[in-house]
């Protein structure tokens, strides 16, 4: 009987102790892992307006425009407009193609050479044709195309960065 009682007390201690631990531990754990599925920093990954449609020549000549995120949010803070990068916009009729200016080789800024109608990276001499395909140099893949769309008269681009030096285009 006394032994039963002692066992009961042991079980009681375990159950109550576990209950108290869960009451505090579970909310703490949930709050801890909260960022797992949350956009804490806005900017990359969202469509942002970059230029008016009229600003891009209809003949397909690429233009370089900055990507400015208006008041991006960083957790609780609303930041002033921030330039996150730049894109080349190329238009054919009513469709627009956007390339990231970040070289897939090692991340330098790619230039557009008007005389050759091609892209070139000044750092390691990677060369890309007007379609963005590699035409020479060390770049392992074509220029990274970004999702672009036209909303009324404005071109919007989903700005993203990708892993450098790989054959595949892997978002970072």
């Amino acid at each position, binding site marked *: 009987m006394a032994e039963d009682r002692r066992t009961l007390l042991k079980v009681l201690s375990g159950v109550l102790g576990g*209950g*108290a631990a869960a009451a505090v531990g579970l909310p703490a754990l*949930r*709050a801890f892992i*909260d960022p797992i599925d949350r956009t804490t920093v806005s900017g990359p990954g969202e469509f942002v307006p970059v230029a008016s449609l009229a600003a891009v020549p209809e003949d397909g000549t690429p233009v370089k425009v900055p990507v400015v995120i208006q008041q991006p949010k960083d*957790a609780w803070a*609303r930041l002033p407009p921030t330039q996150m990068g730049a894109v080349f916009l190329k238009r054919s009729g009513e469709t627009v193609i956007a390339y990231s200016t970040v070289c897939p080789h090692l991340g330098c800024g790619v230039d557009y050479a008007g005389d050759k109608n091609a892209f070139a990276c000044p750092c390691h001499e990677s060369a890309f044709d007007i379609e963005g395909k590699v035409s020479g140099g060390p770049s392992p893949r074509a220029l990274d195309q970004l999702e672009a769309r036209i909303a009324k008269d404005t071109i919007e681009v989903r700005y993203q960065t990708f892993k450098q030096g790989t054959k595949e285009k892997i978002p970072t």
Partner: protein
Amino acid sequence: MKLIDEVDARIGHKKLVHEALYEPMPGGASWAYVFGSSAVILFGVQVLTGIVLAMYYSPSSTDAWASIAYLEREVTMGAVVRGLHHWSAGGMVVVVVLHMLQTAIFGAYKKPREANWIAGLSLFGLVLAFALTGYLLPWDQTGYWATKVATSIAGTVPIMGPAIQRVAQGGNDYGNLTLTRFYALHVVVLPILTIGLIGVHIALFRKHGVTARASLSNAELEAKKDTFWPKQVALDAVFAFVAVVLIAFVAVREGAPLEAPADPSSNFIARPEWYFLFLFQLLKYFEGPLQVVGTVILPGLVATFLLALPFLDRGPSRKLSARKPWMGMLFGGLSAIVLLTTLAVRHDANDPTIAAQKERSEREADRARELAAAGVPTEGAAHMMAHDPPTRGGRVFARECAGCHTLEGRGPKKPKGPDLTAYGSRAWIRQVLRDADSHRLFGRTKVEGMKSFAKLGEEDLNKLVELVYAQRDPNAPPLAKRPGYDLLDDKECTDCHEFEAYDALEGPSLFRYQTTEWIRQVVDRASATHLYDKDNSMPEFDTRLPEEDRAAAVAFLSTLEERAKKDAWPFVDDLGPVPTPRAKKVKTSTAATE
């Protein structure tokens, strides 16, 4: 089993566990012993929840409030974790005081346990230091102002005061360095000290063993002898479980308070946490050069008495009857603390200024959280609030308008201008139509001659109200097409009021009446010929206030209709006596009639 033995052979945990669990307890287990372990468990709750809070908190004067508001609003269970931290802090104070009283009543501070009594008191001091430093961290109004009082008190210490104050607050005034300093103390220094001291406390406790009830004879102690495990552990677990569940319940239900962001330019009436209220109340009794008595000398004497107790009470007996003077002083002091706390609570509960501030501060806190949802600008939460038009306008109103206009039951006894409660609502227009000359409206102004439509039938009155109310609506049909248009001529409204232009007639133009544009003209220059002209006695604010303030005041005045609706303010429905001061009763009675 084998594995456990293998592990034990390497780390020797069995002996440790055995020592921890099979501690001998002369006299057996008792509910009296549960407080110490609960204090440790609640400290564990603080550590765990504190770590999560630290992951979301930013100790800077621009970001602190915003980061807490983010945790509260966005993070799943964030508000609960913060609630747990807040209420468990209060719980710790309670449990530690109970633990201390139990120790005192049992005479457990006596030789040879003096050192442990002092260690325990030091731990209590650390708990209070945690509370003090933690209160500031959200950088909200209460935390900011209450902590300012605390550091100012440190400044009243003779000779060293000013230096102590500057070191404590990290410079000449409150700012980033105050927060980083308090944060470092709160999450690094105090935890290290506390964990170390808990170790010392428990080690000393184990060295001297349990102090059983003094009334038990040696034979009884021997007969009831037990080990710590399992009965005492079970009792401890029951108490700790109840404490944690209670704390969790309140944490989920109430969360932790978060006032509006700290605003150094406001005149917030600071109140400390409830366990510091007695100290706060004490301040009221000592003025001028005597102030140091309330701030430093009396609390210092109490602390000295507690620390010296084992050395003062040197008698061999632990029986209460043998220690009457010392226990009398202890419980006398405790009663004084309870009394002072009660006085402080009762004073505040009956103070309409405090009630008004509480209401305003809740409103500002709600607004701040609403704005913060869109992100707090890098200039900080206080800046965000200062430039939020309705909030800024409320402050401008309090400063510039509230001397002549009553609002929601507050303001001058004999207001010179019309009451602005529910301004812009149909109810307000209805009042003007019925009795513009009442003391509540234009009765005390030079504005006169408005007809009373109190005797007009309800249907026509409603039509007039709607006609006037629709003046602000850009999508309303043209005046001539609205129901009751003929009434404007029939009832001679148009004799004195222009409805379709800012033209001067006998009375103010009601063109775009009560739009922000119209209100702005009144704020700027109510004496304009198309407004109140020669009847006006309101100051012309276009020369008195900067543009931002006037625009803000207009934004604020434009919110009064919504505010009245939200608060079910009584005379949204009908005229009533000016209720002063605003009482909760008013609210519930209207809720009941709806």
